[in-house]
């Protein structure tokens, strides 16, 4: 039966429920009969299938018991052994059998050659996949290392916290730095005013001698930033951290207005 347009709309609304198997009884059989003849509704069901498998991922994940794997694989092995049949071969069939065997061997050889070719191409595919896998793993390890850097600093035995307060040009701005002389500096800042064109923020270690640049800071559009900077190992004991506005690319020494200052103690 071809559904009327009005029925079709009503049926299409059931696609989502059908995709997660929530239709029952008559509703289900009516909808599934309609699916066979309606590509639109079939596509609508397909569009919800990813949601159906995604829901499975929302549950707490548990490892299956280790023994289950062996049991399941053994099960498959048992059912794959088909029972062998033995047949009595009459002697007068032997000659005919020989002929068939010879012909069969020819076919078998061709099939084997085909199989070898398939296996070779599968092997090539597999090698490509392994190579891709290695590359992906390398990327993953690198990003894991990136993510680990702030953690290493925050957990360093010599880490100290320096709070930076907004100065008169940016009273709302605030920042906090965690500095480990041995591992580097993690800094988060918020409410920094948007940078004028051609300008950048620069972070300074204010020491007894000249201030030493710790790096350039680029907040996002909302004026916040989180950054990890490496600091020189032989840095003299700083009295303070300061953030100034400098020309693009940074300055050798602070020249612009101070935006954030925090005493290191």
């Amino acid at each position, binding site marked *: 039966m071809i559904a009327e347009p009005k029925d079709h709309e009503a049926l299409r*609304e059931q696609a*989502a*429920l059908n*995709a*997660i*198997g*929530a239709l*029952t*009884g008559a509703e289900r059989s009516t909808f599934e009969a309609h699916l066979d003849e309606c590509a639109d509704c079939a596509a609508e069901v*397909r*569009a*919800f*299938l*990813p*949601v*159906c*498998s*995604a*829901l*499975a*991922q*929302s*549950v*707490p*994940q*548990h*490892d*299956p*018991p280790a023994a*289950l*794997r062996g*049991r*399941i*694989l053994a*099960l*498959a*092995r048992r*059912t*794959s052994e088909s029972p062998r049949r033995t047949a009595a071969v009459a002697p007068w069939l032997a000659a005919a059998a020989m002929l068939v065997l010879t012909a069969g061997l020819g076919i078998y050889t061709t099939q084997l050659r085909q199989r070898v070719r398939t296996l070779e191409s599968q092997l090539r595919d597999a090698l490509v*996949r392994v190579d*891709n*896998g290695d590359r*992906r*793993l390398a*990327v*993953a390890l*690198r*990003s894991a290392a*990136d993510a680990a850097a702030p953690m290493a600093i925050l957990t360093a035995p010599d880490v100290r916290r320096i709070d930076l307060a907004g100065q008169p040009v940016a009273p709302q701005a605030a920042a906090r730095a965690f500095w480990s002389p041995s591992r580097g500096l993690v800094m988060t800042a918020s409410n920094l005013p948007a940078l004028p064109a051609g300008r950048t923020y620069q972070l300074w270690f204010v020491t007894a001698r000249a201030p030493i640049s710790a790096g350039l800071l680029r907040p996002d559009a909302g004026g916040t930033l989180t950054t990890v900077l490496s600091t020189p190992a032989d840095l003299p004991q700083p009295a303070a951290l300061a953030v100034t506005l400098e020309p693009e690319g940074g300055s050798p020494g602070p020249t612009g207005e101070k935006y954030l200052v925090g005493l290191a103690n």
Partner: protein
Amino acid sequence: MWLLWAMVSARMPAVAAEVDQRALEQLARGDESALAELYDRHARLLYSLALRIVRHQADAEDVLQEVFSQVWRQASRYDASRGSVVGWLVTLTRGRAIDRLRRERVKPDQVRAEDDAREVADAGMPADLRLVTAEQALQVRAALGALPDNQRVPLELAYFEGLTQAEIAERLVVPLGTVKTRMRQALLRLREALTGQKP
């Protein structure tokens, strides 16, 4: 660097789907090693789903055994045009788990599975898939969490408890039509959150 990472993550589910597809083709040709591959890739997800539905470890193991045995026998019946391999596996697992749940529902609840079981990655699971699943799990949980309770609860009752819409209406004391509408809204919102597809 992060852009590269984002590109790689976006590509990963597609790669995972290809690997699954390949394994299923091998399985259809009778290659046992493909069953091991599928098991290593998905047993954790399927077992967790079965456990969530049937709630008993032994039952969840039985469900998994039935599912993989069916996959082994019927790999050739899988039709790629009707969804991904993992989708098929999830459908089989959910169907069998809910059948079992409906059979067992008459019996009283015995020991509940430990809720505090480890959420650690299975050593047998490939690294790429582990990353994909962990990320997707976070995304799905966030999307589910963002639904209003009156949409999420009926959906969970249908999906994890196998209740019919009529049973859900009865349990929640709301009209049947409302149950249908809310479940549909929930699914539409999840689809939008997970695939970016507007209804």
